[in-house]
């Protein structure tokens, strides 16, 4: 049963990811990206991490993609719709990426150590343990990350401000 759900979510995620790369209009790309992120959030539920699934939807879908759409609407995208792809060396870039992907997938599927790995028992109350881990063992990285977020916020405001006002 879990496999069925996994295949369903994975197929939709890959299809919408292809939509992101191939869509002509940036708005369609952003909407495909929303679909992809929601599928990935569903996969996080399958991986027994409900907190990360909710954070995924709140942060990615709720703010990141909305920010993208606001910027797309704010800017004039009519000229960006022409010539979607970089001219010329398209085939080279694609073949290198596909080769890398083929090697990765082949090595993952042939690995015996990965196949032998199965979860022993459930993590009890993952959100509980996640909170304890963040606020005890990883408190310093957590504070550093929040400072980085604040700095990025101020930097974004200063960068996007009009120069001579």
């Amino acid at each position: 049963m879990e496999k069925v759900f996994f295949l369903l979510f994975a197929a939709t995620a890959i299809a919408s990811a292809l939509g992101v790369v191939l869509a002509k209009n940036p708005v369609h790309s952003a909407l495909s990206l929303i679909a992809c992120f929601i599928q990935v959030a569903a996969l996080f539920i399958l991986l027994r991490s409900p907190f990360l699934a909710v954070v995924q939807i709140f942060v990615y879908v709720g703010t990141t993609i909305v920010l993208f759409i606001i910027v797309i609407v704010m800017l004039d995208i009519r000229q960006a719709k022409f010539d979607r792809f970089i001219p010329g060396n398209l085939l080279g870039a694609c073949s290198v990426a596909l080769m890398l992907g083929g090697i990765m997938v082949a090595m993952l599927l042939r690995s015996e150590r990965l196949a032998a790995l199965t979860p022993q028992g459930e993590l009890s109350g993952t959100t509980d343990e996640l909170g304890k881990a963040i606020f005890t063992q990883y408190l310093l990285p957590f504070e550093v990350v929040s400072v980085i977020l604040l700095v990025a916020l101020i930097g974004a405001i200063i960068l996007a401000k009009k120069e001579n006002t």
Partner: protein
Amino acid sequence: MVPLAWYLVLAAVLFIIGLVGVLVRRSVLIVLMSLELMLNSVNINLLAFSYYLQDIRGQVLAVFVITITAAEVAVALAIVVAMMRNRNTLHVDQINLMSD
């Protein structure tokens, strides 16, 4: 029970799709979205290992990755807005201010 390799293969496929998007698209916005896709596939890997190894540290790392991604997108979109205002372009190969 879903084998661990399936999750990793899915993450690899999403990563490659994002990589192709970064390499071949011209619009900065699409390149940034493909970058999001790549970071997200890394999160799938982290959570898969966190579940299969019964270790909470994968989830802690995923929280940090999500936070840094949000910061990165805010700064990148601010740069896009500033670039659109000053140079009036969104094409990745016309962003060559540093090389002039």
